[in-house]
């Protein structure tokens, strides 16, 4: 076990060094996005860089093929390219899936909208419009006037109570990259904290780690 923890240490060091690579960052974004209950901030710059690198490697591979470079080398580059493309596609798809699920919620506030990319906003708006139109044509317009809102149960509802919300009190699995101390409860509730050492694994309530995920101290697994 002693030798193992030493190995773990050096590989963790390597990990932090590697985490500067865009593929590592993309993998992190993908994992977090898959594991988080709500949609996270769109990694626009990262996606842009990944796209550029993918294009560059695609061109390189074409050149290699033309110049008769060893097919083995070409196929290895192709595999690396495939893996990066998979990460990128999967990342964007997970986001689309979440947008479909929470479209009204995502469009409700400026703050929620800021999490989305421009294309995602267009997608969300169109989705929401289509769904609203469908609901209205099939059901809502046939109901009494007080019950025709897509967002509310009836006119007396004070809040939009027919909008599916991400379930933030759910639990996620996370791994800390460094020592972090987190408040277990929302402000004013209780001063209890949890202290995580580097590499610790926790089942934890999403709200507690939300901030630490955004600042990059903690990864979801």
């Amino acid at each position: 076990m002693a030798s193992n923890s030493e190995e773990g240490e050096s590989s963790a060091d390597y990990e932090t060094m590697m985490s500067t690579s865009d593929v590592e960052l993309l993998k992190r974004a993908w994992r977090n996005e898959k594991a988080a209950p709500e949609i996270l901030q769109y990694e626009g710059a990262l996606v842009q860089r990944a796209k550029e690198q993918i294009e560059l490697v695609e061109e390189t591979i074409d050149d290699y093929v033309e110049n008769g470079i060893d097919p083995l080398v070409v196929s290895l580059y192709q595999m690396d390219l495939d893996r990066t493309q998979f990460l990128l596609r999967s990342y964007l798809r997970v986001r689309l899936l979440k947008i479909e699920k929470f479209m009204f919620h995502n469009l409700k506030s400026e703050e929620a909208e800021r999490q989305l990319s421009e294309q995602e906003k267009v997608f969300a708006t169109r989705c929401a419009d289509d769904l609203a139109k469908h609901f209205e044509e099939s059901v809502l317009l046939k109901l009494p006037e007080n019950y025709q809102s897509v967002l509310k149960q009836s006119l007396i509802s004070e809040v939009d109570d027919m909008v599916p919300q991400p379930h933030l009190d759910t639990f996620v699995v996370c791994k800390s990259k460094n020592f972090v101390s987190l408040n277990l409860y929302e402000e004013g509730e209780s001063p209890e904290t949890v202290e995580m050492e580097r590499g610790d694994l926790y089942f934890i309530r999403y709200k507690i780690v939300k901030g630490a995920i955004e600042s990059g101290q903690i990864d979801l697994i």
Partner: protein
Amino acid sequence: MAGQTDPHISLFSPQEIEFMAEDELVEIVPNMNMEQLNFISGDFGRFIPQIPTKVPLWLAVALKRRGKCTFRPPGWMSVDNLTQILEAERESQSTFQALPFSYVEIARLLIDHARDDIPDMFMVRSLVEDIRDVRLHKLETNLGSFQGTSAVKISNVSAMEVNIVRPFVRRALEAFYKHDKPEADVDRDTRSSRQQREANNEPRRPLRQR
């Protein structure tokens, strides 16, 4: 709100778990000359016959399949070490031994693709299987004694193990938390104003109760 308990959105498929494990570095000994590979995921090589070098598992497997290298199995995959780990796993009911986060996937890939490079391959395979079974059983038993309602530490549990228990544990902890919460509210009510409770209840109002 069936969508909220839908496990598919946050769960990783076994293939995705393997995909992540394939980025782990392993040591190989190439038997051919090849220039450095400048991948998007990093630079690897160059490759010189008989000179060991570290590459990601997927690259190692690709080279191995073409007969271009041999593996150097990681230290933890020795029969001695695995026997020790298995014993220790059996001895302690509550703790898990330190193994690589993706030990199941790494062992599986190595056994599938590089069995001739692993000394005592059959022994290693059965030890890894035993360790996996003992740990899974222990993990399931331990689920009964989870402590805490907001954060539960799970030390040395591997990627595959987390993925297996996640749907159950998540729902269990959600339920614990939900049932724990009203009590806390009652406690606070004796001290704080009613308005605060209302404000607190607001975001948790369910859409529709069945």
